[in-house]
């Protein structure tokens, strides 16, 4: 059990991120984002607004995109948490990460990890989204530099790449 009594308040002492169990020490109402960044040094997830409006903090909880700034660590404690740091496998970029590079889909790139995590989830449920579906699914992610069209291009590229692999039975 990840719950443990500490003084009067219950504390969360363990979470599972990117397939690894981490020891933590946090009150259950602490934001997951703060635990990831401040306790585990997983700083790829960003603080952008603190109200679930910009998507910079997006992580996957059991495969679904969630704003880690408004999600408490208590609510995430027994779930599988995936962050941007968990996408690379054996030094090889996830097709989406590669697609963002290939399309140059970034400027300052502060929004990029949140964008990528959101699209990972989109492509899982809809491997071949239309531009309108991409726009609707991604409307919670803000890019202030204005690279949206390139991000859409990266999604399409990754979608084709992933389908290509599937077609080749990989």
């Amino acid at each position, binding site marked *: 059990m990840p719950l443990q009594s500490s003084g009067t308040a219950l504390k969360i002492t363990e979470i599972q991120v990117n397939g690894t169990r981490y020891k933590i020490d*946090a*009150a259950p109402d*602490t934001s997951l984002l*703060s635990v990831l*960044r*401040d306790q585990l*040094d*997983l*700083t*790829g*997830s*960003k*603080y*952008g*607004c*603190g*109200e679930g*409006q*910009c998507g*910079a903090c997006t992580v996957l909880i059991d495969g679904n995109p969630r704003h880690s700034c408004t999600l408490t660590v208590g609510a995430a404690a027994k779930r599988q948490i995936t*962050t*941007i*740091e968990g*996408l*690379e496998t054996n030094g090889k*970029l996830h097709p989406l*990460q*590669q697609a*963002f*590079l290939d399309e*140059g889909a*970034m*400027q*300052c*790139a*502060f*929004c*990029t*990890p949140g964008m*990528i995590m959101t699209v990972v989830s989109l492509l899982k449920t809809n491997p071949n989204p239309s531009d309108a579906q*991409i*726009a*609707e699914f*991604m*409307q919670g*992610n*803000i*890019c*202030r*530099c*204005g*690279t*949206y*069209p*390139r*991000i*859409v291009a990266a999604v399409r590229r990754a979608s084709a790449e992933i389908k290509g692999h599937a077609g080749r039975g990989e």
Partner: protein
Amino acid sequence: MTMTTNPIPGGLPEQEVEFERYELRERPAHHFEFDRRDFAKIIGSGIAVLLISKGVVAQQESGQGRGGGQSLPRDISAWLHIAEDGAITVYTGKVEIGQNIRTSLAQVVAEELHAPFEAIRMVMGDTKFTPYDQGTFGSQTTPRMGMQLRRVASAACDIMRDLAAKQWNVEAGRLVAANGAITDPQTKKSLSYGQLAQGQALARAIPDTDPLIPPAEWTVAGKPLAKVDGRDFVTGRHKYTSDVKLPGMMHGKVLRPPTFGATLTSVDGSAAQSMPGVTFVHDGDFVGIAGTDPQTADRALAAIKAEWKPAPVKTNSREVYDYLKANPQAGGRGGGGGRGGQQADNSHAVEEALSASQHKLEATYRVAYIAHAPLEPRAAVAQWEDGGLNVWTGTQRPFGVRSELAAAFHLSEDKVRVQMPDMGSGYGGKHTGECAVEAARLAKAAGKPVKLVWTREEEFTWAYFRPAGVIEIRSGMSGDGTITAWEFLNYNSGPSAIETPYAVANRNVAFHPTDYPLRQGSYRGLAGTANVFARESHMDDLAEAVKMDPLAFRLKNLPNDPTGDRLRGVLQAAAEKFGWSKSQPAPDHGFGIACGVEKGGHIAACAEVAVDRATGAVKIVRVVAAFDCGAIVNPDGLRNQVMGANIQGLGGALFESIEFENGAITNPKFSKYRVPRFPDMPNIEVVLVDRKDIQPAGAGETPLMALAPAIGNAIFHATKIRLRALPLAPNGIKA
């Protein structure tokens, strides 16, 4: 203070740079010299080439031996080092904020140095290691720093050639530099730059006059190279300031007044102070917390009891335009940038021309306060060490922040080091160092490093804004559509791009500074967006008055000079791609066009909008933007900038507006302050005009300027409703 300008024969000077009062650009009062010992430590062995400004010192050479006695030239603006292992490092005070100069500057260095692009590492915006730089703004990186680095690289290449010539005892002129090595085509001997740098400890200063490779002959510059370090960004590995962590680091919070200008009348921090792991700081009006973790800091901040006395309220966001008009600023730093200040008042000639005009038009335009809202809010990590101060912070002016810190803590500047990790952007909004000063004050009290990251609400409230403004235009036109009189008065928003590029015989253009209610400052494009919006909206009404096509009307009134030619070029390029004259909009759709010039950049945009007459909703269907900033250094980066500027500009054009009442911002959150999102995206195409015969200008700002008027003009085309205020349609169009 009123500035008046007369028509300038032959249009505007090509490369004239117009700074304005909102561009925070002063050099610090005290500028201390680069420490020679640091320099020697950095260069170690190898070869360094330093660029000094023209007229300071003709040429200096520190000679063999490390740091041997002479001091370095005073006005170094850039330098480059080639190590014995062949590593090439370029040092510049410019910073990377997403505009991709880490890549484009390395490209121009690789070009002139004849070295592989991949071999070049840029050290940027670190006050300990890079030469002084006033800041990264004003679209100056490419035309100025790019030019300086090209000269440094070119001189370094010559030095390599000379060293090889000496070793082989041949004429340097017959040697060829390529791919990071010098080769003698006759003997086929070759030495890499690293080999040539071996055993050297040479620092050579060069004047900024070396000849350069013309853009038409570029092989590395001019190519669409991808962002260097891109992999660090898609993996989340890049450490922005807000990601920096130091041993023992605490987390800061600052107590903010409830309203602007409120004064602290009492504060009780005893409850906060008694919490474990908390340092409470009260110093004048500054009240803050350092806590061992963010949650502790939050709890301690909430436990502070403070009382504030509000300041008198000047106005609110609805009445601000009347306030600006009613409160001219006496004195002030004025406007007009580098020109116009001493010219005679032309208003009499304009009045005469107006009364003689066949068509007269008079209209008032307004622009709202808007926020930069960079996705990474202000952040700083401060660490005191041996009486000195180390600060990491996101800023466009690391040396400016160093001065602020030195002044705030009564330190000499050489005791302060500011480092600027590539940041989550700024758009002109991060020229100031308040977050760095706050973090440093907390760290000083705590005796430990402190990280302070502003909340989104703090960023929306306590940063500064793009100024609101009022623009009044009176114009006269003859029956054939020739503009004969032009009066253009800008109140508060600023003088950037205030001059009309059209040929008008009688004009009176003036910027009036006023008193203003909110902290205001630089913003991408400055007042260019406001001034181009007003002018190009007005031009559309003039075209309508003589029933001329808006494109033809602009082409007719542009002068036959280089600026006029380049504007015609981008107008026609945008119109052609858009199909301006080849198609008609569908019902309830409209087409609009606009253009502008500033800082050596020439922009034109065509927009198609669709208006839903039932709901009033406005949708931007498509945009074509054509841009000419001379020779293109990196077409992929430039395309990204032009597209991004237009998408960011869409917010200010359609719906962004800072609302304030009773001394407080009432929409300081992304849930209340609407910025462009994915569903707002039009189909957007970018046309780049590559002028290899013209040295490159900057591109970060000007591409933003034509969008708002193009949209406003398209709305007029669709509905016959003329909107004269930005944002145009925050709640749709009420017909």
